[in-house]
Structures are given as structure tokens and as C-alpha cells.
């Protein structure tokens, strides 16, 4: 309801003068409230002249509360005026319009190029008021009862009291909220970012004393624009438009989202019942092109989306009924179907897929029928068809499927046959085996098998009999002549090509002469190979039993081409630890088989199930003998029995010798393994053991599958045998050494005898016996003092220089007393090992005393003289001594001549021996005479002087 506050009259003015301008002030201003939209509806009119039709104008609209200073809207509204048109504009207010009064005033201005001089604002219209409820004297909340808002938006409420300054409280979902006082009776409350709480809405209410007035705020999700909006037809009669409406707005059921379709060409509109699809009736002959707009709207928002299309290009064909299958025979069948829309201007492309049990084949056609050919006889087929518009693909129709079975045909191919021939009395028992034809060759249900046996002997005879359809073998006893056996499969359409095999008794006898070879198995099967046979061999056949231990052994065979000489025989029935026996035949071009080879083997060998019992014999310190007993045999259910493994495990680790093989077990125990390859050998000598050591021996029978259980024994070897060692090594060595010593001794004696004969003992001289002395024998010996010595001519020699280093000590005495000349080598060893050599002759000293060189030597004027010389010098002297005169080099003057070698014995002069001078223990009683060179001339020291030797005292103290 609106009120014009000040009635005024507005005129269009035409000012005379140089220029004219147009002014059309707004008239009949009416203001009202549209509560559901919270919209202030402003309507006004303009009184126009005829010549000002379609005049462009601007209207300025001011909206304010209470006073002009509180303007809440200033809008320029532009429009082109039409005659008698009521202008209208709706102002949406955030604050509920009932909360307070709103004033509206409008002014206008011509904004037309035709009248540029008229761009002058008219005067403001008198304000028109939209009265609020603040002075109603009633307690209210606005908006009242129901309102709607989108999620996360802000909502403004106001509470109006009955009288001024009443205390009003506001609650939103029981949450007290502070308000803003708009007037003495009106308070505004703003709830920001409202959220969905429940489908039944959120309660907002004002409380004044005990009175409550409220509003339910329904918060919904934002209405989304429909997506994937598209239309299609299945029959060109009905158009089906679909879209995705987006997420649920969660508005209550009585406030649904409404969807409608509007078509622009036909200007028709349809309200959609469903929220995601809508149907539209087509007029196929009237209209091909459509321009649809989908409108979605609810209390809060409107959305729209459009699509433009030719309906003939958006056709998804549809089958009418099922496809039919006609004229089905063994290899062909004809398909027919009906599809809509069936307008003549439409062409279709149809896709056909045919499946049998194994494969699928695809065909394409533009017709509504299709003949399938090349089908497998007596086979279930599945066929399905789908079509689309060929001129413009839109969508495939749904698949239309059907099943059918082709009729039977004559079996193709030939049976795979084989035989077993066993001699019986008077002939052979022949077992004929065949494998059922696979489905693709049987071409129908096999009714039976025909077996024809024709003799190849002189008297031809044919015996034909039949076997059931579910059989795969037959048995017949034949005589010794060869037979040709033909087997064929028969179904309702006919018979297969007969398979032929010739059974010749003579050939079978050769089986005994062929040795059976062992073959190795693999995970996949058992590998066989054979030598290629003659050129007449058409193929090879390997036969075996899947269950060789069973009476019904499940006889199997496999054929190979003539160019194949090896194969891996596979079978699901093969098991580990089962020995399979294979026979390999050549099949001649005359269909006559002949045995080529026999093989035996395992897919995987197993260890034997036995345990040797071990004993020990001949236990010695380094060897022993192991004996064992067992029940291990070469039985087919485990593996090929290859011998025994003997494991030696010493308590103290020791290396394996060359005869053994080192084995390291999983627990890092190292053992030495002997291999006994002879399965019949039950004893084994173990050598090279360590004495006094403990060994564990394990004896295991082994196959390719591993070792059997072990027979274990623990043995400790004996101690070391010294006697034997002595007997064998040391004693012979000792005897040999003894003999060698004896021999050497004899040799030394012999050499001594020959080279250094003993000086005859004067006491034992035969002269003594001739003199026939009576009494003491010593009395018979002459005393040197009694002898008159011969003169000795001593010639000084320059060779004295050769005796440098030789210490010569001449011990002189009074002439009347015998003096001893000691020639001793310098050095301990020499003293130790050399016997003393003594000269007892004064003549040496006399000659030497004349020599000046004598002073260089030590002359000991007592009998306690000792001379120390090097052994080298001694030897030289000795050598010189034994040198014969005749060997004197020419030019050298012989200065020394032997006079007499008789010397008085020392034994009679014991009283002269000094305690400081060691007496030679083994001094010969004969003193060897020796030449004293001139350089070593004796000199006699002054009387009273002690004899001095350059040798050390130790040397001197050393006994001879």
C-alpha cells in the first residue's frame, strides 16, 4: 500500500524561444510490498504524446527510510517508452519491508538522441510511502512464518514491539542474538552465513515477555544449473530429454525444485514431472529442428540451459521384438530383425556378433537380415545385433541377442588310433585305442565307432564290428598273420575318414632285443629323444601308461611328425616318484609300427625309503672298514638306485682328502662324502683317518631324488703304533748307522796302518828280548845323558818368515840335563786336539844360539817350556817334517839334517815337570824331530827369568 504524501501536477513543458525541451515527469506512482520476495514493487506511468513514441528515458528512483538522509537506494532506471505502458521496477530489500516505512520518489529525463536538448531532469515526484508495521501496536517478527535462504547467505530479521522501548529478545535456533535498534519499536537482527540444520527448517523467533512470534527459515543448497542436458528419440514420436540436476537443495518436500522445458520455435512449454528427465511429443513431419531451454527454479533461484538440434540426428534406434533365426543348417543361418524408427529417409548400420564356444566373429550390415556362413556344425552359437543411424551416428541401440545350434555334419578328420599287441597262444591279443574326436571335428553326436580288421595274408578276410559311442578302445585276438585295422567315427550325418594301423606279430618280437634307457624328467614333463629312422617313417609314436602300477594303467600315446626326434611328454597324471616306461615307435608309410626305443624315467625322483644298518670292522688308528646291511632296492616308486653316500664327520674339523667330496650342510657342518657307485657293495674301507680321533659315519642310499635315511655310527680310532714305526724306519736306520761307523772305523784303522803306522815301542822291542835283561825293563833302556849326541849342522834359512805367527817356545836346560822342545800350536782347539810333539836334542839349540834371530823367540831356560803355535803352522811344520830331502827346492840350501830320532823318554823325568805347565797326557814317548828354521832360533833368557809365552794363560793351562 502506498501513500502520496504531497499531490503535485507535472506538466510537459514546451518553452518558447530559441529551443524546446521535453519533460515527462512520472505519474501515478504506486508502491506495494511483495512479502514473499521481499520486494518493493514500484509502478508509475508517463503521459506521452504521439510523436514521442519509443522515447528513451531515464528514471531516477530514490528509496529512503524515515528521512532523505537515510537513502537506501538510488537507482537509474533506463527504458524505451511505449504508449500507455505502466513502468515497473522491483526493489529487493535486505531488511524486511514490513519492518519500517520506505519512501519512494522518482524523477525523469529524456535520454533520446532525437532530443538531445531535452536531457534535463524533471523535478522529483512527491514521495510515496510504503508503510511498515512499526506503528501497528502489535508484536511481530518479520519476515513472518516462512522464509527461504541459500546456504552461507545472510538473513535479516526485525522484531516490532507493541509499545516503545519494549525489551525484545531474538533467538535463532535457540541462540540469543544481539540486534540493532532501527526505531523505538523496531529492532533488526542479522544472521550471517546461515547453514542447513534440518529439513524442517531453522526456527527464528522474537520473545517479548511470554509472547513468542517466529519464522521458520528454510535453508537450502544453491540450485545448480542442470548439466548434460540432451534430448533424443527412439521412435521419432517422443523426445526424451535428460539432464543431471546437480546436488539436492535439501528444501522441504512442499518446496520442490521445478523443472520445465520450453521450445522456442513452437513456443510450447512443458512442466516436467521428474527432476532429471522430461518427455516431449514430436511432430515429425512438421519440425525437424528444435531449440529447447530447460528451466530449473525454486523459491530462491532460477537456472536455465539450452540445446539446439536436428531430431533426425539424435535417434537411438530400437528393436521391435526379438531377432529371428531362419534356415539353420550345419554351417549357415539367416538372421532377421525389425527396427524403428522406420522412416524411409533413415538408413541404419547394424553390427552382428556371433560367438561359439571358442571365438567371436563380427559382421556389419545395413540390411535388416544377414546370413551367417562358415559356422561350426552341431555347435551352440550366440548371436547379437545392434544398430545405429548410418547417416549420423548418435547412439547404438541395445543389443538384441539370440542363441541357436547348427545341425550335424559328417565328422571331419580321422581318429587318432594306437594299439597294444600282446602275444597269446596261437596269436596276439590286440587292443585298439582311439581318442574321441574333438567337437570341431565330430560335427555332431558320435553314435558309434566302426572297426574293420582285414587280414593282409594270402587269404583276405574282413571282420567289421562296432563299438559304443562312449568307448575309446576295443580288444581282439588275432592269429599270427598281419592285419590292417581301420577305425572310423560315425554320427547321424555320416562317417569319418577311417584311421588305419597294421598289426604285424613279427615286429613285436623285436621288443625283447631293445635295451631300456634311462631319461631325466623336468618340471614340465619327461624329455625323450630318439634317433631318426628311415625315410619311410611317416611318423613317430610314444606310448606310456599314466598309472603304471595300476591294472588299468590309463594307456596314452602321442604322435609326432617324421621330422621330430625329441619331445617333452606331459601329463597331468604324472607324479613324482613314479617310474614311467615309454616305448617309441616308428610308424611306416604302410601304417605299420615298429619299436625304436624304450625309455624309462621319472618326472622327479624321490629318495629311497630305506635305512642302512652300519657296523665297523678292522678298526685301526688310521683306517677302518664300514659294513652295512639294508633293504634298499631299485624299486620304481622312488627313483633310480645309484649307490651309497658315506658321510664322514670328524669331531675335530679336518680337511677332506682327494677321494672325498666336501659337503657343506645348511647348518654349516662340513663333512666329507665318499660315493659308492655299486649298489651291491656293502662294505667300504675308510683310510687316512687321524689316530685317536672320533668320527661319525653316515651311510645313505641315494637316487636322483636324494639320500635315504642314514645309518649312523660313531667310531674312535686307536693310538699311534711306535713299534711299527721303529721296526719300519728307525731300526733299519740305526743298523745302517752302526755298520757305517764300524766300516769307517775299519777304514780309519786301515788308513792309519798304511799312512801313519805306530812307532814301535822300545819297551816292546825285540832287541830287548835279545839282550836278555833280567830285572826291571827300564833298566835296559839307555839314558840320553849317557849318549854323546851327534853334531848337527844347522843352517839358517830365510823361510823363517813363513813361520810368522808361530809361537815357538824352546825350553832349554843345562846341557847335562835333557831339555824338551815343545812345538805347540796356538789356540785352544789346537791344544785340545793335537798331541804334544817333543824333541829331545840339544843340538838344535846350539845351532840356534848362534843365530841372531834367536833373540826374537822366547827361550825358557828351564824344562818348563811351552810353545804355542797355530795349527796351521803346526801342519806346515809337520809337513816340512815329513818332506823328504830330495824335495827341497833347487836353489835352497838345505840347512837341517836328521841326526837321530831316538830320544829319551819322558817318563823318567817326572820330577822336572812343573805344576804350571800342563803335561801332555798322551805324549808319545818318541818325540818327532823337527826342523827349526833359523828365524825361530832359540835364545836363552837370562838366568832367573821366568819363561814367558805369548799365549794366554788359559791356553797355557789347557791340558794337552
Amino acid at each position, binding site marked *: 500500500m502506498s501513500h502520496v504524501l504531497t499531490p503535485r501536477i507535472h506538466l510537459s513543458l514546451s518553452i518558447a524561444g530559441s529551443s524546446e525541451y521535453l519533460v515527462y515527469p512520472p505519474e501515478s506512482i504506486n508502491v506495494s510490498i511483495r512479502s514473499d520476495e521481499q520486494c518493493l514493487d514500484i509502478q508509475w506511468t508517463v503521459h506521452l504524446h504521439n510523436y514521442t513514441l519509443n522515447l528513451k528515458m531515464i528514471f531516477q528512483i530514490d528509496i529512503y527510510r524515515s528521512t532523505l538522509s537515510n537513502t537506501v537506494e538510488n537507482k537509474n532506471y533506463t527504458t524505451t517508452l511505449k504508449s500507455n505502458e505502466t513502468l515497473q521496477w522491483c526493489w529487493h530489500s535486505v531488511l524486511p519491508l514490513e519492518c519500517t516505512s520506505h519512501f519512494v520518489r522518482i524523477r525523469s529525463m529524456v535520454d533520446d538522441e532525437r532530443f538531445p536538448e531535452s536531457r534535463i531532469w524533471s523535478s522529483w515526484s512527491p514521495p510515496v510511502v510504503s508503510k511498515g508495521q512499526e506503528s501497528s501496536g502489535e508484536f511481530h517478527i518479520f519476515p513472518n512464518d516462512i522464509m527461504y535462504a541459500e546456504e552461507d547467505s545472510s538473513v535479516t530479521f526485525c522484531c516490532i514491539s507493541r509499545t516503545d522501548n519494549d525489551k525484545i529478545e531474538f533467538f535463532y535456533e535457540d541462540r540469543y542474538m544481539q540486534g540493532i535498534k532501527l526505531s523505538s519499536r523496531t529492532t533488526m537482527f542479522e544472521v550471517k552465513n546461515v547453514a542447513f*540444520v534440518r529439513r524442517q527448517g531453522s*526456527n527464528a523467533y522474537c520473545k517479548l515477555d511470554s509472547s513468542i512470534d517466529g519464522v521458520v527459515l528454510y535453508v537450502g543448497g544453491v540450485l545448480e544449473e542442470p548439466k548434460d542436458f540432451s534430448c533424443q528419440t527412439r521412435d521419432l514420436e517422443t523426445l526424451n530429454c535428460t539432464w543431471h540436476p546437480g546436488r539436492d537443495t535439501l528444501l522441504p518436500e*512442499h518446496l520442490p525444485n521445478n523443472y520445465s522445458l520450453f521450445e522456442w520455435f513452437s513456443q510450447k512449454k512443458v512442466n516436467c514431472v521428474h527432476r532429471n528427465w522430461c518427455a516431449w511429443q514430436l511432430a515429425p513431419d512438421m519440425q525437424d529442428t528444435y531449440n529447447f531451454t530447460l528451466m530449473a527454479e525454486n523459491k530462491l533461484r532460477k537456472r536455465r540451459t539450452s540445446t539446439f538440434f536436428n531430431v533426425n540426428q539424435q535417434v537411438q534406434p530400437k528393436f521391435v521384438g526379438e531377432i529371428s533365426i531362419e534356415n539353420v543348417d550345419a554351417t549357415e543361418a539367416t538372421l532377421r530383425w525389425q527396427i524403428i524408427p522406420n522412416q524411409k529417409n533413415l538408413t541404419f548400420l547394424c553390427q552382428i556378433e556371433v560367438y561359439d564356444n571358442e571365438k567371436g566373429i563380427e559382421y556389419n550390415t545395413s540390411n535388416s537380415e544377414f546370413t551367417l556362413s562358415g559356422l561350426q556344425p552341431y555347435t551352440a552359437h550366440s548371436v547379437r545385433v545392434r544398430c545405429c543411424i548410418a547417416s549420423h551416428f548418435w547412439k547404438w541401440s541395445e543389443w538384441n541377442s539370440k542363441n541357436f545350434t547348427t545341425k550335424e555334419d559328417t565328422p571331419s578328420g580321422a581318429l587318432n588310433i594306437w594299439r597294444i599287441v600282446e602275444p597269446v597262444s596261437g596269436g596276439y591279443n590286440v587292443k585298439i585305442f582311439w581318442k574321441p574326436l574333438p567337437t570341431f571335428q565330430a560335427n555332431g553326436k558320435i553314435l558309434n565307432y566302426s572297426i574293420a580288421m582285414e587280414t593282409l595274408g594270402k587269404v583276405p578276410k574282413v571282420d567289421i564290428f562296432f563299438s559304443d559311442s562312449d568307448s575309446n578302445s576295443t580288444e581282439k585276438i588275432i592269429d599270427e598273420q598281419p592285419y590292417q585295422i581301420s577305425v572310423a567315427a560315425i554320427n547321424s550325418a555320416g562317417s569319418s575318414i577311417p584311421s588305419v594301423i597294421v598289426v604285424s606279430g613279427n615286429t613285436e618280437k623285436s621288443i625283447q632285443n631293445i635295451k631300456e634307457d634311462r631319461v631325466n624328467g623336468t618340471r614340465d614333463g619327461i624329455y625323450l629323444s630318439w634317433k631318426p629312422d628311415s625315410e619311410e617313417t611317416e611318423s613317430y609314436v610314444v606310448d606310456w601308461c599314466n598309472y603304471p602300477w595300476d591294472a588299468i594303467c590309463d594307456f596314452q600315446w602321442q604322435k609326432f611328425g617324421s621330422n621330430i626326434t625329441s619331445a617333452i611328454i606331459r601329463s597331468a597324471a604324472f607324479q613324482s616318484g613314479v617310474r614311467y616306461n615309454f616305448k617309441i615307435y616308428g610308424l611306416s608309410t604302410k601304417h605299420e609300427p615298429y619299436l625304436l626305443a624304450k625309455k624309462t624315467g621319472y618326472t622327479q625322483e624321490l629318495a629311497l625309503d630305506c635305512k642302512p644298518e652300519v657296523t665297523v670292522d678292522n678298526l685301526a688308528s688310521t683306517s677302518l672298514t664300514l659294513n652295512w646291511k639294508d633293504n634298499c632296492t631299485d624299486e620304481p616308486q622312488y627313483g633310480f638306485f645309484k649307490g651309497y653316500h658315506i658321510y664322514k664327520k670328524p669331531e675335530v674339523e679336518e680337511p677332506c682328502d682327494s677321494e672325498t667330496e666336501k659337503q657343506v650342510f645348511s647348518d654349516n657342518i662340513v663333512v666329507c662324502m665318499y660315493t659308492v657307485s655299486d649298489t651291491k657293495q656293502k662294505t667300504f674301507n675308510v683310510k687316512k683317518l687321524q689316530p685317536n680321533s672320533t668320527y661319525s659315519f653316515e651311510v645313505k642310499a641315494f637316487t636322483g631324488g636324494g639320500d635315504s635315511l642314514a645309518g649312523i655310527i660313531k667310531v674312535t680310532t686307536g693310538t699311534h703304533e711306535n713299534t711299527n714305526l721303529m721296526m719300519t724306519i728307525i731300526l733299519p736306520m740305526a743298523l745302517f748307522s752302526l755298520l757305517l761307523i764300524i766300516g769307517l772305523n775299519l777304514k780309519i784303522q786301515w788308513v792309519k796302518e798304511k799312512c801313519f803306522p805306530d812307532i814301535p815301542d822300545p819297551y816292546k822291542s825285540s832287541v830287548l828280548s835279545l839282550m836278555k835283561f833280567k830285572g826291571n825293563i827300564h833298566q835296559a833302556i839307555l839314558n840320553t845323558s849317557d849318549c854323546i849326541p851327534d853334531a848337527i849342522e844347522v843352517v839358517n834359512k830365510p823361510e823363517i818368515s813363513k813361520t810368522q805367527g808361530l809361537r815357538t817356545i824352546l825350553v832349554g836346560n843345562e846341557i847335562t840335563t835333557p831339555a824338551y822342545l815343545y812345538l805347540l800350536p796356538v789356540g785352544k782347539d789346537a791344544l785340545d786336539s793335537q798331541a804334544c810333539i817333543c824333541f829331545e836334542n840339544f843340538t838344535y839349540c846350539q845351532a840356534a844360539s848362534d843365530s841372531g834371530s834367536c833373540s826374537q823367540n822366547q827361550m825358557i831356560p828351564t824344562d818348563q817350556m811351552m810353545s804355542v803355535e797355530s795349527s796351521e803352522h803346526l801342519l806346515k811344520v809337520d809337513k816340512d817334517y815329513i818332506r823328504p830331502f830330495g824335495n827341497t827346492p833347487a836353489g835352497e840350501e838345505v840347512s837341517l839334517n836328521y841326526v837321530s830320532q831316538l830320544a829319551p823318554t819322558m817318563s823318567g823325568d817326572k820330577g822336572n815337570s812343573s805344576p804350571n805347565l800342563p803335561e801332555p797326557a798322551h805324549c808319545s814317548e818318541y818325540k818327532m824331530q823337527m826342523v827349526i828354521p833359523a828365524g825361530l832360533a832359540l835364545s836363552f833368557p837370562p838366568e832367573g827369568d821366568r819363561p814367558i809365552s805369548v799365549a794366554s794363560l788359559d791356553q797355557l793351562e789347557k791340558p794337552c
Partner: protein
Amino acid sequence: MWARLRLSSLFGLTCGLLWLCPAAGSTCPVYQTLLCQLKNMAKKDFLKAFMTDQGLNSPHLNETCTGSSDFPVTETLKDLPPVTFLQTVSQTVRLIEQKLNEPVFKRMHIYLQGIDNNVCCMLQALLPAPAACPAPASRRTLSPTPTVGSFSWKLERCKIIQSYQRFMEAVGKVLETWGASPGQRNRKRRSLLNVLLGQRRKVRAG
């Protein structure tokens, strides 16, 4: 006897689950079962669920729901003769049905129909006359109801349900005084006229 009780209980349980015992055209349960069912049905609380659903279970709005009731209270009902009592229950229930004839109250509506049917069966047990059930009353012209889902609608429906709840509480209390067989009652019967006159006197005196 025990087996019969068990069967009756089973039937009662079935009815209770279905909330509906068709009166016309089918056999009514035995009186004792009906009585038991009615007592149980009178205890059903619809107010709490409604207030929770509508977000009215706040202290301020709770008070607003609570108001005076237009339906007879315990003091009024307890002095009514059984037939009159049952007819009053039937009429009141039908009035509430009429007021709550909105999709939101669909389940409650079915429940109320079940109560009405059971009351009808009880009346058949009490009255020798063949058609004891009150004829469906012509729909009253109700005062204009506020917009469904509005705040005033919520409060008004809350008040109606609350009144119903009070009324059924009173009905339950009266039924507790009823004996195991039809016609048995612990207290002296009074006519509805006497009851109403007594109420008027009380009001005037008050």
C-alpha cells in the same frame, strides 16, 4: 487358558506392530487383548518426536506448546460409563485425526485409526447391539490452518499433539480402572450428562 492368553498376546503384539485392527468386516480380538492394547497405545509419545523433528525442544518454545486443552481431562473421563467413555475417545481421536490430516503426520494418523478401531471393537464387546461403533462424523469445518511448515503451524500442531498426549494419558488412567471382563468397573458409573453438569458447577463455583 495359558495357551489362549499367549495366542491373544501374540495377536495383540501383531496388532500393536501394525497399529491397526480392522473393525469392520473382520473379527475383533478378545476384550482383554483390546484393553491391553489400548492401554499400551495410550502411552505412545508423539510429542517428543515432533518437537525434536521441528526444532521446538527449547525451553522457550516448550512453554509455548504447553497450553490448555480442548479435550476432556481425567476427572471428566473417569466418571463416564464405559460405552460413553469409549465413544468420547473415538470422537476425540477422530477430531485429532482431522486436525492432523497432513503428510507429516502420516504415521501418527495410522496409529490414531488403530486406536479408533480398537475402541470400536471394545464397544462391540460392551454393547449387545450390532452396530456399536459410532458413525464417522461429518468433517468439521476447522479454523483456517497456517501454512504448512510455518512457525505458527509448528506451534499449533505442537499444541494439538500435546493435547492429544494429555487426553490419551487420561484415557490410559481410566482404562487402568477397568476390569478383565466387559462391564466390570471399579467405580460407580455416572452418565455423561451428570458429568458435564458437575463440571459446569465446578467451573461456576471456581
